[in-house]
């Protein structure tokens, strides 16, 4: 006979039913007053939060230690008794958010808990902040790398045109140290604030960028849009958090993948893999959410072990072929070729795909920028074109906040 554990991460997440919020291990421990050694391997579980119902697990009667690793990097632990044929509830508690509207950023570690947020330090003086959609970025017409590397001449009208025109949007919430923007709400684009889709690319989606200006400093934010829920097949809201101190974070309010992206940010690819629903599933559904699939690709490649071919290798190839507007697919396939090279032709293919990735523009994921640098380095020594590209990508990488999941680049003075 067994009892049932109802396990949940207790956090309000704006009413979102977050099915996959954290990773927990559940292990049997001696009951109170006993010193007997625990038996059996721990269960590894993905636990829900927000308004999602608790995860239900049938367990043998006894006492259990539950340890959870959160996307923020925080660890929480608690113990629970399971009685025969009875239900037990464990609501794991994490730090409180400074505001409800900062609950998602706090879950993902982009904002500290309320205790630290109000720790008594003087908040930085906020610079006047302006956030707007960029209307003219088009990798087909411009070498975005050249411009962002600061190699575009200041008198270059083209460069000015690319980065000077934006349509401002307003924050949905703010306090003295943070502003929160939400660029997709309630599953639909805010058409009034979006630029027209121009120039038209038949079959190719236009990418969306924000420009965030704080005082003299401007940054380009690669928006991972559209981001489509695998559950509902509708777009989920994308939040952009702008701190007075200068930090910018992009948060995807995706009940399935949003938290996994936090693990990607904290450098914990093995944890991200578990939360990405074994990642393969996400990559398989790339037609529904190609940007999510691109994230899964980094996770799978980054944690791959063994030389044998895997089913998902073919799906990475499809990312390269089917989604020209996502440079990350080309970067990943180049690395797949490099890593599983069987002949010299594979090296040539890897080089060609890295060049393709460069020409497709900034990767959506900042980890892709690092992988692009690493990949181009292998070919730059004997190839002037690659060397030029590498110099530009390195320069952009220096301007990029690699602690963030998505690519955010400090713009040069134009």
């Amino acid at each position, binding site marked *: 006979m067994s009892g049932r554990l109802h396990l949940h991460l207790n956090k309000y997440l704006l009413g979102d039913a977050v099915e996959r919020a954290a990773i927990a291990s559940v292990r049997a*421990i*001696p009951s*109170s*007053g*006993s*010193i007997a050694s*625990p038996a059996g*391997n*721990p269960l590894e579980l993905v636990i829900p939060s927000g308004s999602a119902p608790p995860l239900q697990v049938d367990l043998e009667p006894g006492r259990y*230690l539950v*340890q959870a*690793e959160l996307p923020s*990097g925080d*660890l929480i*632990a608690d*113990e629970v008794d399971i009685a025969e044929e009875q239900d037990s509830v464990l609501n794991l508690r994490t730090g409180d958010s400074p505001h409800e509207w900062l609950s998602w950023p706090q879950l993902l570690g982009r904002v*500290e808990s309320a*205790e*630290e947020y109000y*720790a008594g*330090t003087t908040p930085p003086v906020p610079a006047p902040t302006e956030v707007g959609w960029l209307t003219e970025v088009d990798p087909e017409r411009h070498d975005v790398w050249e411009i962002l590397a600061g190699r575009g001449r200041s008198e270059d009208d083209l460069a000015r045109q690319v980065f000077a025109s934006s349509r401002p949007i307003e924050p949905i919430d703010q306090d003295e140290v943070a502003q929160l923007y939400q660029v997709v709400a309630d599953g639909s684009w805010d058409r009034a604030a979006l630029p027209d889709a121009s120039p038209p690319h038949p079959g190719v989606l236009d990418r969306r960028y924000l420009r965030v200006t704080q005082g003299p400093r401007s940054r380009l934010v690669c928006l991972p849009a559209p981001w489509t829920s695998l559950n509902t097949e509708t777009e989920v809201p994308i939040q952009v958090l702008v701190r007075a101190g200068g930090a910018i974070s992009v948060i995807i309010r995706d009940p399935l993948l949003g938290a996994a992206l936090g693990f990607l940010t*904290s*450098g*914990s*690819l*093995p*944890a991200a893999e578990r939360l990405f629903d074994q990642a393969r599933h996400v990559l398989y559904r790339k037609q529904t959410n190609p940007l999510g699939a691109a994230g899964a690709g980094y996770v799978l490649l*980054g*944690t*791959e*072990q*063994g*030389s044998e071919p895997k089913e998902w290798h073919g799906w990475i190839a499809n990312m390269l072929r089917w989604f020209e507007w996502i440079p990350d697919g080309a970067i990943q396939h180049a690395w797949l070729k*490099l*890593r*599983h*090279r*069987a*002949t*010299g032709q*594979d*090296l040539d293919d*890897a*080089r060609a795909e890295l060049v393709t990735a460069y020409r497709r523009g900034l990767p959506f994921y900042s980890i892709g920028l*690092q992988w692009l*640098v*690493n990949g181009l*380095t*292998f*070919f730059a*020594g*004997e190839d002037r074109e690659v060397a030029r590209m590498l*110099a530009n990508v*390195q*320069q952009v*990488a*220096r301007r*990029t906040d*690699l*602690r963030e999941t998505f690519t955010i680049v400090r713009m040069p003075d134009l």
Partner: protein
Amino acid sequence: MDPFLVHDAAVVGPATHAIVIGVSAYPHLIGGTGPLSAHHEGMTQLTSASPSARSVASWLIESLHDPAKPLATVALLTAEDERRPFRNARTGADHLVEPATMANVKRALRAWAGRGASEDDRLIFYFCGHGIAGGTEVSLLLSDYGEHPDNPMDGAVDFGGMLRGLEAKAAREQCFFVDACRTGSEIAVAAVGYLGDPVFIANARNLPIPAPPPRLSPVYYSTVPGHAAYGYPDRPSPFAEALILGLKGAGSDDNDGEWRVSTTGLKLAIDSYLERAFGPGTRRAQVPATDNLSTFYLHSLEGPPVVDVFVGCRPEQANAAADLCCLSGGVVQNRRGPAEGEWKLSLQSGQYEFVADFAAGPYRRATRSRYVSPPYRRVPLEVSR
């Protein structure tokens, strides 16, 4: 005999090879013994780097145990005010430690990578000293940084370049620990991409064909890009302490029946230790970072690990009146009288009973049973009036 080795044990089959570098003395930086470099950028002598390297090397020699890849060699290079011997805790032999100059480090790195001659070997790299960054890339500064006015970076290792270049080496498990600042540097920016000598050149034509299994190469940085790392005066740095505590057991699990430290468990242990090292409830002064994290086991423990435990009353002011006690199987293990703050104790992983007693009011006795396991355990005792 490699002059940089302070440990050299015969191992048949796959083995672990470590290189440990600690640079405290920089003759050409502020307070140094040589001509001051124009490119010092405010950097001074360090007191924590060499003790960190020595303690890491000592721990590896004395305690690292992986039956699948036993420790074969440890190379140690330091830069200190005066050269001091290093005593190998296993053999008792004293070794004169070679200075961490560019020429020496280059030779030592190449010999180290060469020792990892089979796919099943493991390489471990640890550096503590000054680091400067150009964006995401970090330069590790050796003792002769700044010696040459025409190119101060002659005395620096381009860590990112080295990491990429090591892809061509045979060992498929390579583990890197970088205990250095990653703050932006004018010299790194002015050098336009030249961040020192990568020691190993990344070139696609050097890669073996067909490819060996994917390399697993986690990198543990003591701090995130753009931020400083800190040291303690004349003792190992917080990161070095966190690393050793993690290896001792805070990064371990017994998921497969025996206590072992994995690369992912080590990350959790380092993260949680550094968070506590800089004080709870405050903005963290040093946040560690990890790249390329993948999972493999590094170290097997002989038995259950010793775990840091933090016991405290809620509300916190009750600590000042509480007699705290820890029991195992009804037997008292530890006690603490009334005092401010949490009670930190180290306990072997297992089941314990924690008690807060009050000789005089206004609080009532509180007890809590807690299972103690890595990486650490916090035991709040809710007391009522």
